[in-house]
């Protein structure tokens, strides 16, 4: 197959359009195609470079193909968006592109979930809770969380798109990047350390100064944590919180 534009770098405006569209990747998320239509939406500006433009047969076939079922972590979907763009513009065979889409979806989902939802997000939350516990103002807490979290978020999306465009269908090896493989372990350790400091500090600030109950609260919380840890897969903590709180509110209204 003839390479159409991959030998020439994509225009900056096209890359920027793809990057910004990726922030809306899940705009039409649904239980049938998951974020497949979002991938089509993000790739679309680059597909206009195919022969015939938006009215060409190549454009229509590629857009239909790229809007089918796909599942990936939204921040790491850029890896797929970049690689698939490169493949489409390189004129790679449609069957090969579809096989690649199927193969890439699983790893991009699990790696992204571990790195972002299960590591980076809780870590940033705990840092913000720590800033609150240390007496930080509303602006300091909000600013710390948003700047810290989105530094990682924006960079990860940009890295994904860049590496995908650069490597095309050979992008799978990029998932072996040490940040993606070892990052969750280091971030997890850092989150645990920060959590040990931040949670009791925040509890102290909520309860208020001069209260001698903080020791009792921490002890009660430890017992609760042990109970929830035992129930791990059988109960959702937030639902239990809702139930206990509803009972407490009823009790306080009736006494």
């Amino acid at each position, binding site marked *: 197959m003839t390479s159409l534009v991959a030998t020439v770098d994509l225009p900056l405006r096209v890359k920027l359009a793809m990057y910004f569209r990726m*922030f809306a990747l899940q705009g039409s998320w649904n239980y049938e195609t998951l974020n497949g239509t979002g991938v089509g939406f993000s790739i679309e500006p680059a597909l206009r470079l195919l022969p015939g433009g938006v009215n060409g047969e190549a454009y229509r076939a590629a857009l*239909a193909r790229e809007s089918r079922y796909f599942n990936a972590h939204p921040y790491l979907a850029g890896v797929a968006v970049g690689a698939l763009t490169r493949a489409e513009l390189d004129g790679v065979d449609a069957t090969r592109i579809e096989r690649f889409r199927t193969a890439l979806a699983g790893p991009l989902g699990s790696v992204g979930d571990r790195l972002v939802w299960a590591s980076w997000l809780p870590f940033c939350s705990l840092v913000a809770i720590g800033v609150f516990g240390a007496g930080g103002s509303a602006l300091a807490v909000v600013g710390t969380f948003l700047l810290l979290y989105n530094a990682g978020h924006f960079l990860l999306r940009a890295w994904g798109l860049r590496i995908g465009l650069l490597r095309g269908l050979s992008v799978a090896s990029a998932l072996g990047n040490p940040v993606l493989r070892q990052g969750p372990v280091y971030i997890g350790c850092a989150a645990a350390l920060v959590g040990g400091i931040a949670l009791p500090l925040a509890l102290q600030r909520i309860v208020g100064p001069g209260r001698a109950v903080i020791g009792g609260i921490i002890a009660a919380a430890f017992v609760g944590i042990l109970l929830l840890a035992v129930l791990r897969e059988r109960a959702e903590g937030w639902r239990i919180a809702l139930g206990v709180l509803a009972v407490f509110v009823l009790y306080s209204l009736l006494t």
Partner: protein
Amino acid sequence: MSLLEALPIALLGALLGLDVVSFPQAMISRPIIAATAAGAFIGNPPGGLLIGVVLEMIALDTLPFGASRYPEWGSAGVVGGALFADQTAGMPGALPACLLAALLTASISGWSMVVLRRMIAGRLARTRDRLEAGSRDALLSLHLSGMSLDLLRGGLVTIIAMLIFAPLVKAIVAVWGSESAASHAVVVVIAATVGGAALWKVFHSVRHVLWFFLAGLVVWAGLQLPR
């Protein structure tokens, strides 16, 4: 709270509800941000921040993995923050009552997201032929309508929750029976329990993680000594 007073809060709820999944997922929808922003709207950012921190600890339990169903914290954070920031300082029942309202909103709003995703799937089914033909218009229409509906969903959830819970919370706070310290302690124990258990759930497989947490506790204890 009148409809006119609730409208700016609903707009904030709509924008932050949109952030949860559709756009831009910058986590401005996390309760610690959403509740503080709502508190600032009411003129009491510290009040919004306080309930935001409590909600954030509870929200750590429901991270948005894959296609799992979870509570929607953006609109719920706005509702909780706006309600709590509007209460007179020092009222013992304010924090538990507002927290309960926020958790109920999160639950209902999570369900509304499921309904929305089904609606989008319905639209997808109706435009499948055009999408399979590579129609740009069909794709853009599906995508942009999905985002618009999500914006509308967040706004509607917020305004309905505010109109129901604002008078209800005021009534609960007025007849609250438990004393202030006990009320705060119960809320704090609930938040710490759920937050701590959530951290264990997420990080228990990481080697030596418990030692890092204990080291953090030792640092915290060390910080208490000069006080």
